[in-house]
């Protein structure tokens, strides 16, 4: 992605970052709210005790990587682990990328990248860094995302968790 304000440029940049031009797909979305209406996401209070080893919010991306790119993906993760860990968004941390050893739902994807953060606004800041071609960390995140299989039928998921002790239940 670039800092261009032309949306066609942004779409082209995303396409080039993916490394191939997949057939166009427009998949209808059916929103499934798992918890939003039940558990409120709250900003940190400031005097909150440390309630766990991870941040208040854990963001988990599930995805597939095309099998032909497995070796390249592993090499990227080895080479870029340090860089991915130097987030340019204060309070947002890269916790690593994992393969799924076991799960009951295939459509969630065979890989997980896990982040922790303090507030939801950091997800927007992350998007801005990814869109900024001058941000080295953002470029590394974009490169990581480019390994995800763009085929709509490929497994893909996103989970956002909030510390239960910091949630109004």
């Amino acid at each position, binding site marked *: *992605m670039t800092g261009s304000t032309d*949306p*066609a440029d*942004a*779409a*082209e940049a*995303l*396409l*080039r970052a*993916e490394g*191939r*031009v*997949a*057939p*166009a*797909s*427009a*998949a*209808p*979305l059916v*929103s499934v709210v798992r918890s939003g209406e039940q558990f409120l996401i709250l900003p940190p209070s400031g005097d909150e005790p440390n309630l766990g080893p991870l941040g208040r919010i854990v963001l988990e991306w599930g995805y597939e990587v095309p099998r032909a790119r497995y070796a390249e993906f592993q090499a990227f993760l080895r080479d870029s682990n340090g860089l991915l860990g130097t987030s340019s968004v204060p309070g947002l941390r890269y916790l690593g990328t994992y393969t799924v050893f076991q799960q009951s739902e295939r459509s969630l994807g065979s890989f997980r990248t896990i982040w922790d953060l303090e507030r939801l606004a950091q*997800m927007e800041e*992350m*998007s801005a860094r*990814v*869109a900024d071609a001058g941000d080295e960390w953002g470029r590394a*995140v*974009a490169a990581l*995302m*480019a390994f*995800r299989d*763009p085929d*709509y039928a490929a497994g*893909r998921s*996103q989970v956002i968790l909030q510390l239960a002790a910091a949630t109004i239940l």
Partner: protein
Amino acid sequence: MRPERAAPRHERAPGLRLRPVPELGACLAYTPAAPRLHQLNATAWLILELADGRDDAALAEAFAARTAPALPAAAARRTLENGLAELRSRGLLRRPPPRTTEEGDPA
């Protein structure tokens, strides 16, 4: 003088709103007239951005330029045609009624 048909083109669904989500490698499209949300991949998003009122020939030229060299010309044409059909079938693009060059001219 016989009125000439304007070049064929596509237009976006009325009120179509696009919201890029680069961290998901996608763009969300909302059509308020028929309230529906679609997730577009980058190719579909690019096609929608290029369908800005230009005629189909100009659209094909722009798409080919932006997908080269990954797609050779013939593949770019096929990908665009299939993409346009997909976006029409989802109600995100449509073909406006044929116009003639005399339409809108003062009598």
